[in-house]
């Protein structure tokens, strides 16, 4: 019941906001959206507090026949891998609603409606245990995101929206064919757990691996199919960038853990070299690309690609450090990238430019803001005692167990990450006041302060005391690794 509530409360609230009509009722719409988002978050809290740490299987399961013709069930459940993402998503939704409070002033109902519906759908993706249900949620998120980027985005928004949509659709459609094949082979079952036990020859696994790879690699995004991300991120409104970075990017990585690794373990092991190579390229090469960006949002977008490379690297070295590190990195990146985009949003709302060159000396006029951004920049660079450090450290440990040179290349991110983040920070925040516009900046208002403070608390807490996050995943991750280690053919 809880999972259904987590999915449907935001969707119902979103429809209600949308149905309230035009901008005359904007204040009411904002409040309805906020109440919906908060309620949506509150119902996810028992998922964490009531979570059984010893149980590696799925908990809070719900199951009802949905489409008899295809044997499709409305089957929900979370394990240690997915439960945190439901919480993360519901938490970020509240921040997004608050962040858009005064910034979005046209077609408010449609904006909040799209966000809340998407939040519900995203919870659905993480909770779905039936492949068709998963696919419906997975694809359904495209519609609101397309609208959000295209309607409230920057100057090049239409190009970015269409590119985002078609790119991700291509991947998903190939995954659909792969799913239908598995449906056929399993004798007519769409249950993901049934597929985990399905024996498949290595050749078949390899072909299916690429079918799924396309869908998930585009979503992650992995090099070389990452090119939609900088465009989408740059042109999306602040809220859109936050959800995109914090949650949407996790869908791909989550797909690897839920589908690729357990269903196709042999192919995953066979092709791990490919995944590792792609991940390392993302980490090192994209890290270098990030250095030369002049647009702040583009810079953070590229740094996301680089960070997500860490996640996929962690998954495909097949040890507990790697997988848990990857998952932790996903959650930490959810907080940190959201915070970074919100910081840029704060500046953009005042100056209407994202170019690093237009700033300089912001610390003189916005000291509170500068200290928050300092913290998030450090977290983005992976400084110890921030959440960014935990994941990267675990993945590098895992890589070290697998191969020294692997760890060596992966560790370049610590240098590069520090370089691009701090260099940007220095150019934007420090120095003398660059121009009159910067000179007239106002510091954070209470709403912005609250949002950033919430994220700062999360980042610090997770960096200092990560146990509450790691302990929920132990059982499920170990079970997953046991499953992957056993040959399936």
């Amino acid at each position: 019941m809880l999972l259904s509530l987590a999915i449907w409360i935001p969707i119902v609230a979103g429809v209600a906001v949308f149905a309230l009509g035009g901008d005359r009722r904007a204040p009411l719409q904002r409040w309805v959206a906020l109440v919906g988002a908060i309620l949506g978050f509150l119902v996810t809290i028992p998922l964490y507090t009531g979570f059984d740490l010893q149980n590696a299987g799925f908990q809070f399961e719900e199951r009802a026949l949905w489409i008899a013709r295809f044997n499709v069930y409305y089957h929900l459940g979370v394990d240690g891998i997915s439960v945190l993402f439901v919480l993360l998503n519901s938490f970020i939704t509240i921040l997004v609603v608050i962040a858009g409070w005064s910034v979005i002033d046209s077609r408010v109902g449609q904006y909040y409606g799209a966000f809340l519906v998407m939040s519900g759908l995203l919870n659905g993706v993480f909770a779905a245990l039936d492949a068709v249900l998963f696919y419906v949620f997975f694809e359904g998120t495209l519609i609101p995101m397309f609208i959000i980027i295209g309607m409230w985005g920057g100057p090049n928004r239409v190009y970015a929206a269409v590119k985002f949509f078609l790119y991700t659709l291509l991947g998903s459609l190939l995954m659909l064919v792969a799913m239908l094949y598995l449906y056929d082979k399993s004798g007519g079952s769409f249950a993901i757990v049934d597929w985990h036990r399905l024996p498949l020859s290595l050749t078949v696994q390899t072909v299916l691996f690429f079918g799924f790879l396309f869908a998930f690699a585009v979503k992650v995004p992995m090099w070389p199919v990452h090119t939609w991300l900088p465009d989408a991120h740059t042109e999306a409104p602040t809220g859109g960038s936050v959800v995109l970075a914090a949650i949407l990017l996790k869908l791909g990585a989550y797909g690897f853990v839920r589908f690729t690794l357990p269903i196709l373990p042999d192919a995953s092991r066979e092709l791990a070299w490919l995944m590792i190579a792609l991940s390392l390229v993302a980490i090192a090469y994209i890290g270098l690309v990030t250095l030369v960006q002049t647009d702040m949002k583009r810079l953070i977008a590229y740094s996301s690609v680089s960070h997500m490379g860490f996640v996929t690297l962690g998954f495909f070295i097949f040890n507990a450090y790697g997988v848990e590190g990857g998952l932790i990195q996903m959650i930490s990146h959810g907080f940190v990238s959201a915070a970074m985009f919100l910081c840029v949003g704060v500046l953009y709302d005042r100056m209407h430019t994202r170019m690093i060159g237009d700033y300089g000396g912001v610390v003189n006029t916005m000291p509170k803001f500068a200290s928050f951004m300092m913290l998030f920049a450090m977290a983005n660079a992976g400084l110890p005692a921030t959440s960014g450090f935990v994941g990267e450290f675990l993945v590098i440990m895992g890589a070290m167990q697998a191969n020294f040179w692997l760890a060596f290349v992966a560790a370049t991110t610590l240098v590069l990450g520090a370089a691009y983040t701090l260099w940007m920070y220095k150019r934007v925040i420090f120095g003398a006041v660059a121009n009159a516009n910067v000179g007239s900046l106002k510091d954070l208002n209470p709403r912005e302060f609250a949002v950033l403070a919430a994220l700062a608390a999360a980042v610090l807490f997770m960096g200092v005391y990560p146990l509450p996050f790691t302990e929920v995943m132990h059982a499920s991750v170990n079970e997953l690794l046991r499953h992957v280690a056993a040959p399936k053919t």
Partner: protein
Amino acid sequence: MSTIAFLSHLRALPEMWLLVATCVVMVIDVYSKDEQRRLTLYAAQFTLLVCFLLTAYVLFESEGTRQLIFSGMFVSDVMGHLLKLVSYVAVSAALLYSRQYMLDRSLLRGEFVTLLLFALLGMMVMISAASFLTLFLGLELMSLCLYALVALNRDSALSTEAAMKYFVLGALSSGLLLYGMSMIYGATGTLNIYEVAAHAGRLVDTESDRTFLVFGLVFLVAGLAFKVGVVPFHMWIPDVYHGAPTAVTLIVGTAPKLAAFAMAMRLLVNGLLDLAQDWQQMLALLAVLSMALGNITAIAQTNLKRMLAYSTIAHMGFMLLGLLSGVVDGNRLNAADAYSGALFYVIVYVLMSLGAFGVLLYCSRAGFECENLEDVKGLNRTNPWTAFIMLLLMFSLAGIPPTAGFYAKLAVLSAAVNAGQIWLAVAAVIFSLIGAFYYLRVVKLMYFDDPKEATRARGGLGFGVALSANGLAILLFGLLPSLLMNACLEAIKAL
């Protein structure tokens, strides 16, 4: 004739009622003045309502059994009833949607209504045809009415040209079909489709007879392809869709697809299932070509009606995927799944097409045709709700969940994959990706661009409610596809 035999003819009651009622409507119309035209429309809607109830009654009374009546010329089965019910809905919606549009262009004459009802009668005869003769009779009744409807706007050169093309190509395809039928008749010695099936099963094993049958089959498939509108027999579709008044395009693009589907089912599945291997290959070629040409050409269109015409071609190609996946190496285990997938597809397509043309009609006014891509620019600013309905329809046509269009694609793709046609399925998804682009462009124009002029569309309350119901039905069947899917499966199982 015994009483029982007589009573069994009551299964054709909807057809009988429609024939009588249409004649009455015609008479009513003759005696009513222009400003009383409303009366004709009400009478027509009442006729359709009674048809619906009668068919529903026959459906429940028959308890899923199949019965041949009129000396085996006419078959009454679940698939027929289902298709007829959807046809009534489509025609009724067409009447409702087109009233204001036709009125604004002084085209709302009695002929429009009666021709439409006669066309419906033709479709019903086609749907229930158990003999080549009945099939042809129904086909011609439908086609002739549609030719006349396309030419309804006599003063428009575009319409007249479209009607001419439609007529010439339609006559040609009827000829092909008739030729194919005569071949089959020559080989089997019967016109009855079910007897053809019995004979064909015996004949396929002899080489010479088989050649004869396949020869006839080629012409049948070509004729069918014309009527369904798939490449390379698609040339009439864009011109007719473009040239006809939008209200008529809506009619041509919806209910006749159901009849064409029924014709394909009767001829190929009921009649020549033993030749499945042969016609499945032909359909596979038609399907791939249609999906490719339809989706790629649609991108280049600036006229929405033409774009939707190419989209129809692509969708019919997709539907064929279901039809061609029924029999694998003589094994018919998956047949019901595959054909019901195609049936589901065609019904969902008709609903989507109805809605899409409905939106165009809704946004048209006296002296303004909403038919170019530019005309929907900024619709979200002027008519947010209409834009939202169109958004649902476009995403459904593109096959994005949670809309009904996705399950339609899922049903036929899963049939193709079950039949081992993986490459066909991969080709289909790639072309549907290409297709997504032009549907997306419509959404982009409506939502991301500014309107050319800020005028609210007005289509009347009844129209608005019907159109909303149409759009929301797409969402409803997307959230609960079982409602329709089970009905389709039952219909095919009872075949």
